[in-house]
C-alpha cells in the first residue's frame, strides 16, 4: 500500500508542478485571503474592543482571531474541490488504467490525498508567515498545532471530495453537492461570524459541527493556551474527521473499483 501511495503521490505531484498557473494560484490564494479580510475585519474587532466588548468575537487581537479562521477556511476550500480533478482522470481513462493493476485502492486514494495535503500545508505555512509579517503574534507551538489541524482537515475533505467525485463521476452533479455542503459548514463553524451572536438553535447546531471545534482549537492554539480543553476537542475532531474521511473514501474507492 505504501509503495502505491508513494507512486501515486509522485505521479500526481509531477502533474501539479507541470502547471505553473496552479502553483501560482495555490501560493497567491492565502495572500489574497489576508489582503481582503484583514482590512475589513481588523477595524471591526478593534472598535468592539475599544468599547470594552469583543462583540461576540473570541478573545485576542484581530490577527489572532481571524488568521486561525482563515487557515481553517483554507483547509476546507483548498481540499473540498479536488474531486473535480478525479473526474477529469476518470474521463481520460487514467483511473481505469490504474484500476486494472494490482495496486491497492487505498494507495491510489492516499497518494492523491497526500499531494493535496502537502500543497495545503505549504499554503498554510505561507499564510501564517505573511500574517506574522503583517503583525500577527503567535507562539510557534500554537502555529504548528494549527497547521497540523489544517493538514488533518485537508486529509479528510480531500478524501471525501475524491469519494464524491468517484461516486458521482460528473462535474455537474459534484458542484451543487459541494456548494450545498460548504456553506452551512462554513457558517456553523464560526470562522467568519461569531456563533455567540447566533440564536440558541443555531448555536446548538454549531456545537454539533466538528469544524466549529476545530476552529475553536486553532484560536486557542494561536493564543498559546495549549492546556485549554477546547484544543483537545478540536484536535480530536480533526483526527476523527481525517480518519472518517479516509474510511468513507476507501469504501467508495473499493466499491467503485470493483
Amino acid at each position: 500500500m505504501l509503495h502505491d501511495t508513494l507512486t501515486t503521490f509522485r505521479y500526481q505531484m509531477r502533474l501539479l508542478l507541470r502547471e505553473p498557473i496552479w502553483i501560482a494560484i495555490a501560493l497567491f490564494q492565502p495572500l489574497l485571503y489576508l489582503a481582503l479580510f484583514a482590512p475589513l475585519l481588523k477595524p471591526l474587532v478593534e472598535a468592539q474592543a475599544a468599547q470594552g466588548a469583543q462583540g461576540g468575537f473570541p478573545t485576542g487581537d484581530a490577527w489572532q482571531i481571524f488568521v486561525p479562521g482563515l487557515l481553517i477556511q483554507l483547509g476546507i476550500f483548498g481540499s473540498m474541490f479536488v474531486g473535480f480533478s478525479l473526474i477529469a482522470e476518470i474521463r481520460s481513462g487514467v483511473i481505469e488504467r490504474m484500476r486494472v493493476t494490482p495496486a491497492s485502492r487505498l494507495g491510489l486514494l492516499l497518494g492523491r490525498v497526500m499531494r493535496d495535503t502537502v500543497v495545503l500545508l505549504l499554503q498554510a505555512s505561507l499564510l501564517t508567515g505573511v500574517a506574522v509579517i503583517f503583525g500577527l503574534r503567535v507562539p510557534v507551538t500554537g502555529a504548528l498545532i494549527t497547521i497540523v489541524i489544517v493538514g488533518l482537515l485537508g486529509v479528510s475533505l480531500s478524501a471525501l471530495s475524491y469519494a464524491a467525485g468517484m461516486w458521482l463521476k460528473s462535474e455537474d452533479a459534484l458542484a451543487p453537492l459541494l456548494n450545498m455542503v460548504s456553506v452551512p459548514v462554513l457558517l456553523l463553524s464560526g470562522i467568519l461570524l461569531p456563533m455567540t451572536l447566533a440564536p440558541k438553535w443555531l448555536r446548538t447546531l454549531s456545537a454539533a459541527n466538528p469544524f466549529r471545534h476545530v476552529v475553536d482549537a486553532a484560536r486557542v492554539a494561536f493564543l498559546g493556551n495549549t492546556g485549554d480543553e477546547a484544543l483537545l476537542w478540536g484536535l480530536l475532531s480533526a483526527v476523527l474527521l481525517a480518519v472518517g474521511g479516509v474510511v468513507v473514501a476507501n469504501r467508495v474507492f473499493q466499491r467503485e473499483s470493483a
Partner: protein
Amino acid sequence: MIAVDQLRRTFQSKTGPVEAVRGVSFAVAAGEIVGFLGPNGAGKTTTQRMLSTLLTPTGGNATVAGCDLRKDPVGVRRKIGYVPQGGSTNPLASIVEELRTQAALHRVPRADAEARIDELLLSLDLQGLGARLTQTLSGSQRRRLDIALGLIHRPKLIFLDEPSTGLDPHSRANLWNHIRHLRDHDGATIVLTTHYLDEADALSDRILIMDHGQIVAEGSPQQLKRRISGDVVTFDVKDHQDAAKAVLGALAGVRDLSIVDSTVRAVVDQGSVDALPLMRALDAAGIPVAAMKVTQPSLDDVFLTLTGRSLRDSDTAASSAAAAPGAN
C-alpha cells in the same frame, strides 16, 4: 487461459434493467487470439470489462489466467494487460512518466522497467518521443502508448478493446503485426473486441460473434464463413427492395435473402452461374438494377444470416439505442 460459465451483467437504467450480457459461456486456450465481433451494444466490451475485473458480474463465474474472477480479482490483475477503448493517458504526463508509473503499480523492478520501456518505445514506433507530453502526441501515437501501457509488465493474457480505433492504415497494419508477434514470440493469449470485420478476420484464430448480449456463433473465420455455402449476390435496386426480394424469393436455389440499405442480398450455390438468371428475373419484373456484384461470403454475411441484420447497420442503430453506461 480463460473459462467462462454463464457470465451475466445487468445495468440499472432509468427505464429499468438492461441486460448487457446474458449468460455467456466460452473458453480461451493459451496462445490463442480470440476476437469478439459484434455491433456497438452487443455486450463484447462489457464481457471484456468483467473479465479484466473492471465490472463485477451480476451472475455466473469465470477463471482468468488461473484465478477465480470473483474470489481473486487482484490475482487476475497481476496476470493480465488491458488496453481500454477510449484512451488512458493524462495530457500533462510524458510518455516515459506514464510508462514508469504503470510499471511501478505493476511492481516491475526499476531496472527491468527501464529496459522494458526502451523495448516498447522501439517496437511501437515511439522511440525518441519519451519526454513528450501526451497532449502533444497524434491520435495514433497516443493509441500506441495506450497499448504500451497495457504491455509494460509482460502479461501473458492481454485484453484489447477496439485496438485499432483511431489508427491510420499504416499504424493499423503495424499494430496487427505487433499483436501477432505477441502471440508468436511472447506466447501471449489475446482477447480483442472489434467491430471491424477485416480486423477480426485478419487477426483472430477464433471469433465469437455477439449480439444482444449473447454469443450467436463461434469458430475460426474460415469455419464461420463456411456456414454459408455458396456465393453472395448483391443487387442494388434503389427503392425496390421489397419487390426485388419477393421476385428473388420465388426462384429456386436462392437462400438467405436480406435487404441492406438499397440492396438485396441473396446466397446461391455458384455465383458465376446463378447470378445471371436472377438478374433476368428482376429485369422481367420491371425492377431496375443499378449494380450487381458476386462475392465470397464475409463475416458480415455470417452476421446477417444469423441475426437478419448487417453489422454495419447494427452499429448505427445500436449506438443510438445504447441505454446503459458501459453497456457495449
